[in-house]
């Protein structure tokens, strides 16, 4: 079988090598497009002292929230957290360190890591607590702060379809942080709803080229909705 075939057949294999103290970058926004099963596997592994980088930390009992139950997270880097009681408790007790990062800066930090850019300037956060201790520089009369990239030992992402080589496409706004996360892991693990054969996806429409994917697994997903808003037909 081709050296480009990234498919693994168990979640054990998918997350093999994850150890205490590692940094894990996770795709997803809220509960949308999160790598549900890879997160559950991290819980199962019981590894501790993790640094998790993700826009949010799930909810009680679902998504990254499950990693709070056994206090597996030491540091959370996110833009918006606290949709869950456990998170609040552990943060207030000091068991959980939280590094709040503006959403766009977080996305760009992941992209930069994948793109070999160690740091970039952004106006976001200048003059706020987020800018404290960071270099300030003026360009064209405006003040910017220096932000560094953020790389993970592992990146866990959720896509819709991928071919065996790991070329992936995302469904609707379940894309969100996943493509950047995919580029920012030393080991990138992707779970998808469907695996297809190479050649089935239009090369121009591939959103994450397989070069970024180390392990690929097909899973089934609950896809819980956080805020169910509907209108009458």
């Amino acid at each position, binding site marked *: 079988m081709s050296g480009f075939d990234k498919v693994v057949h168990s979640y054990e294999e998918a997350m093999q090598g994850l150890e205490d103290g590692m940094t894990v970058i996770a795709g997803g926004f809220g509960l*949308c497009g999160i790598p549900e099963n890879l997160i559950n596997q991290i819980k199962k592994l019981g590894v501790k002292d993790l640094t998790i980088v993700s826009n949010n930390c799930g909810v009680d009992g679902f998504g990254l929230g499950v990693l709070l139950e056994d206090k597996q997270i030491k540091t959370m880097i996110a833009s918006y957290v606290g949709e869950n009681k456990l998170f609040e408790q552990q943060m207030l007790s000091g068991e959980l360190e939280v590094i709040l990062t503006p959403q*766009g800066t977080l996305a760009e930090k992941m992209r930069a890591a994948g793109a070999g850019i160690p740091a970039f300037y952004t106006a976001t956060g200048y003059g706020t607590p987020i800018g404290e201790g960071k270099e300030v520089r003026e360009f064209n009369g405006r*003040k910017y702060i220096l932000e560094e990239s953020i790389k993970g030992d592992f990146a866990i992402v959720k896509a819709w379809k991928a071919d065996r080589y790991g070329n992936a496409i995302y469904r609707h706004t379940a894309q969100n942080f996943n493509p950047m996360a995919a580029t920012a892991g030393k080991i990138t693990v992707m779970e998808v709803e469907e695996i297809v054969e190479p050649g089935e996806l239009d090369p121009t429409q591939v959103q994450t080229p397989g070069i970024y994917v180390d392990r690929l697994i097909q899973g089934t997903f609950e896809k819980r909705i956080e805020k169910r808003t509907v209108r009458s037909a």
Partner: protein
Amino acid sequence: MTLSREQMAMRVARELKDGYYVNLGIGIPTLVANYIPEGIEVMFQSENGLLGMGPFPTEEQLDADLINAGKETVTTINGASIFSSADSFAMIRGGHVDFTVLGAFEVDVKGNIASWMIPGKLVKGMGGAMDLVAAAPNIIVMMTHADKYGNSKLLEQCSLPLTGAGCIKRVMTDLAFVEIDHEQGAFILKERAPGISVDEIVGKTGGKLIVPDNVPEMEF
């Protein structure tokens, strides 16, 4: 009388222009979408990666993979595009969104805004607010003029940790429509709510307020 949230949204909506790409913050700002003036079209950007956000889905359309920045299930309009969070904030940070409306706790005469953190209270995070305020060339803050204890939210200097420095130029409150002159370090009273006197606004404005000779009443 103080404006209702709907009236505030209505007034803000009058600033919309045909062809505007618009980002509405979570909460009161979303009401603006209900008052788009006749004859114009705007397109809504949602910072989780959607341009061309449509109304909530019907039961049949409901899809967990299609949400907005408030994590609500939504739909797309014809001509929508969907992209990554990095591309979404490239769009925002690059100043391509024409019009942004956000809530706040405080703004001050230097255009500073505080909207994400109250020390001593649980801090949930800034989400995309810091990116939005730093980037939006055309932003309106929507909030009540004073808090429930009567303390002004339009200050000489923000007391809370900032969301952004020197970035706000217009504020829509339940009493007035106010511009900020960063150079002068002052609010400028542009319009007042029907039946609200200039004196009341002056009394409820903590920072320096310039009152032009003519301050028209808003009409609804």
